[in-house]
Structure formats: C-alpha cells, structure tokens
C-alpha cells in the first residue's frame, strides 16, 4: 500500500529492542524511515526548513540519549509524531514570545506541494480544484487530512498525536470530504441523480 507500510508495527517492535541495546544500525533504520516525514510534519507547522530539521534532530537526539527507555514507549510511531509536534509548538511559542496552547486553531498548516513542473502541467483542473479546497480547510481539519493522506496514519494514531478523540478525527474528515465535494459540484452534476420524490 502506501510508503508508510515499509515499517510495520511488528518490525517497529523489533527495532525498539535493538535500539535499547544501543544498536546504531537499528536507530539508523528508524531515522531513515521517519525523519523526512517528521520534517514535513514539523515544516507544516513552523514553515522553515532549517527549523523543521532541527526540531526533528532534537527528537532523535533525545531518543538516542534515552534509548534504554524506548521499550516502554507503546507506539513509537505516535511517539515520534507527538514529540515532533510538542517540540515544534515549543519552537513557535518561543519565537512568538507567547504561549501557543491550542495550536491548530491558529497555525496555518502547510500542505506539501513539491511536484515537479512537469507533474504540475499534467495535473488536471479537477486536481487543482481539490487542492484549493484542501488548502482552504480550517487548520485542524487540514492537519488531520494531511496526516491521514500523506503519512498514511490511522485515525486512532492521529487522534493520539493531536490529543483529540477518534470521533473528532472522523468528523473532521467528513468536513474535508464535504468541502471538496462542494468545490467539485459542477464537475459531476451531469451524472443523473435519482429524483428526490422517488421513495
């Protein structure tokens, strides 16, 4: 399926044990598998490449320093995202010289858009419309949509990372899908709809 599945949960368990035994190779696998994704995640919040990289470095530095404790982390994937989120929020708080407590209501979330010019040429009008709709989603909704689509995370994982309920994730996905469908309305209205009078 998606690229996130390269590391499945079972494999991650094994990695955890090896990392706890100071196996640098195992740590390297973890780093290579997640650092780019986490940098993207941090970047969506801080919007500075260097800062996003530093934030993720800090997360991995802490993991390696405290590797003996890594076995007690239940879901390492969720942990990585949560630690990245917290570090990024700290960074934003410091920069803004004020506390950022309910971040996703105020932070503008950046959706990845790193297609080559060629790819952009062949992107259809419909895709463009969808992209606009996604970009116009409210921040929290956009973040949830992004994590599920781009990072292939489960609803439950996103709920844990963002500290919301699974129902909230579900409801936010409903909002996202509905907003996109509104944007595309004109493109599929020609498809016959059954008359509403029919039972």
């Amino acid at each position, binding site marked *: 399926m998606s690229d996130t599945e390269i590391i499945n949960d079972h494999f991650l368990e094994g990695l955890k044990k090896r990392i706890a035994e100071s196996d640098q190779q195992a740590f390297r696998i973890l*780093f290579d598998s997640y650092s780019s994704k986490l940098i993207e995640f941090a970047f969506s919040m801080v919007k500075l490449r260097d800062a996003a990289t530093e934030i993720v470095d800090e997360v991995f530095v802490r993991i390696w320093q405290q590797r003996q*404790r890594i076995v007690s982390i239940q879901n390492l994937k969720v942990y990585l995202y949560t630690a990245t989120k917290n570090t990024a929020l*700290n960074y934003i708080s410091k920069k803004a010289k004020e506390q950022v407590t309910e971040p996703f209501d105020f932070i503008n979330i950046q959706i990845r858009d790193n297609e080559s010019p060629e790819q952009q040429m062949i992107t259809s009008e419909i895709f463009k419309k969808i992209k606009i709709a996604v970009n116009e989603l409210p921040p929290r909704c956009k973040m949830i949509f992004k994590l599920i689509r781009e990072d292939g995370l489960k609803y439950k994982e996103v709920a844990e990372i963002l*500290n919301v309920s699974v129902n909230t994730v579900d409801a936010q996905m409903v909002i996202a899908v509905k907003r996109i469908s509104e944007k595309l309305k004109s493109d599929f209205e020609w498809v016959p709809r059954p008359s509403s009078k029919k039972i």
Partner: protein
Amino acid sequence: MLNDRIAALIARHLSGEATSDELRELAEHFQVFPADQYFEELLRSYWNSKPDIPAQQSIHSDEHFKHILELADEETQGKVREIEISQTLHGSKKIRAFIKRYSVAAAIAGISFVAWKFAFPHHEVTPKQELQNEVIAKKGARSQLLLPDGSQVRLNSDSRLVYLNHFNDSLREVELEGEAYFDVVKDPKRPFIVHTSGIDIHVVGTAFNVKSYTEEPTIETTLIHGTIEVVKKNQPDAPRLILHPHEKYIFNKAEDRLVNNNVAIPETDVIKTNTAISITALPKNIPDTSIVETSWIYNKFRFEGERFGELSIRMERWFNVKIIIKNDKVANYRLRGSFVNETIEDALKALQLSVSFKYTINGEEVEIDKE
C-alpha cells in the same frame, strides 16, 4: 450534496478505516447515487497522487545521522547523568528486566508508570519508564515554561523541574527542586501533582508557589488562588491538608517539631499545627507583586525582616554570587526592602543605607564584614 454519513464512509474507505459492513453500505449507496461514486473516484485519484516524500539522500543522510549521534553524546555527558548512573549500575539487559517487572506490577496495581516512578524514593537508580523533560534555571537566571497541558510555570534561580512526556495522559505530575510558581489549567479529570523531596502537592486548577531547595531546612508552598491539598511524602494514608488562598504551608524537613512563624511574614497567625508542619496566613489585601513569596515572579527580590545571614543565601541564587558574611553581628541584622533589576553592587549599596557594613566584590565572590 453529500450527506455526513456518506462523506464519513468515503473518508474511511480512502484511509482504509472502513469495516466490511460500511463498505457494503457504501456500495449500495453508489448503486443509487452514481454521482457520488464518480466523486469518490475523483477524490481517490487525488488521494493516491500524493507526492513521494523525498527519501533521505544517502550521503546527506550519513552525515545527518552522524551529526545526531554526536549531538546525543555531547549532551549526554553533561545533562543526562542519571541515565549514565543507571547504565553503570545495571547494564542494559538488567534494565529491561526491570522494566518488564515494573510493567507487570503496574498493570496489577492499576497504576501508571508515572505514579510508580514517583512513589519510590530510589528511582534515581532505576531506569525511567518514560522519556522526560527537564527544565533548569541556573543561578542568577529565572525561566518560564509552558507545560503540554497549557499550565504555566515560572522557575526561580537555581531550580529544576522535571515532567514526563506522558504528562498529558491521565495524571499530570512534575518533580521540583528549588522554587517555582504554578498556574495550573483546570482539569478535574487529570489531577496535577507537584512532587518535592518532602511533600506532594495535589492540585485541581490553581496558582501557587512552591519552594523546596535542598539546602534549606523547610519546604514551603503558598497558595494564591484555588485549592491545593498537601500530603507528606511516603505517607499516602496520612490526612491531606487543604490549603486556602493566601495561606502558606511550611514543612520542616529536619525533625518533627513545630516550625516557628516565619519571620518573613510578621503579622501572621499559626492556624493549624501538626508536628513538622505549620500553616500561616499571609497578610490580607496585599497584591501578589508585594507578597514576599511571589514577588520574584515579577522580577522583584523582596525581603521582610529576614536576617542578613538568611537573606544572603537567597541573594546568592538571585545574583549568582557567593556571599561570605564574616561578622556575626552583621549576619544578624534584620532587613526589609526589595530590589528590582539591580546589580549585586547596587543592592549592597542600598542595604548600606539602612545598616552599616562594608563589602568587597571579587568576581563572583562577595565578602561582607563590619565597618
């Protein structure tokens, strides 16, 4: 227009969350509403078109990875000494055995790791169950931080606050050495506990000050608003003392004797007494900025009739200096006043206006003697 149910099913379908019943429901819906199926197909082609996250370039990745290992080593030497200790004491295999045993014990007792860790005084030689965050304000500095739940903490000079990464879950616990002012976000479902060496403070949502320096004989907590409960460490069955706003709880670490009214608050009464514990009321109608216990938050260094000898310990932390008072009579002078943003020299000059002594400053060392 899509209704909520269908939008939810489409989202679950795309993200692989749909159950087989839900997939059937969606298929049935599509039979009647082909337009919705067309929409889902459009959305799916967008969904699957996600730009690949650039894989770490191998050369860059090599260097980057090395850099992280180096950073981890550098910091480990200074900051995370505790882990080193546990490493040398047990070796990593034994540590994992510990963790396993703890997790079983925790499951049986129905308590979290966090509670376990704090409940036992010897935790410094056992491995930490969770990754923790440590914030330190050095001598001469004060620091401010925001906990993951939004609670605010100000750390006074020479203080250390530790909280776990799991801080947010069901119990909010921090460990304090030194002095801190807490403004805790209300959340009855997740009690907030401050652990010190002698007492634990249970909070629901409130603002209060805690002073627990290793070198001082007492641990004090002063409540500004809200309610807190104080429990003596290692005595979970002992009755909890409830503190009301503008009351101060003093715990004498050394022995079971009643602590004298703190001279810093002259007009106070002892309300309740309990061996090593006393509770005093702060003078009423004084703004927080002027109360000795909380003035530091406003960058004010305030003292109300303390002996110069006691005051000098606080001044050492505040100004990051070492103060030696050579004369007993000078050390016994009682002083009152406040400093705001002064240097140590300004402060000493100001004190000379009310009592007589002479001082010499040698870098970070201050010598005080009679004139």
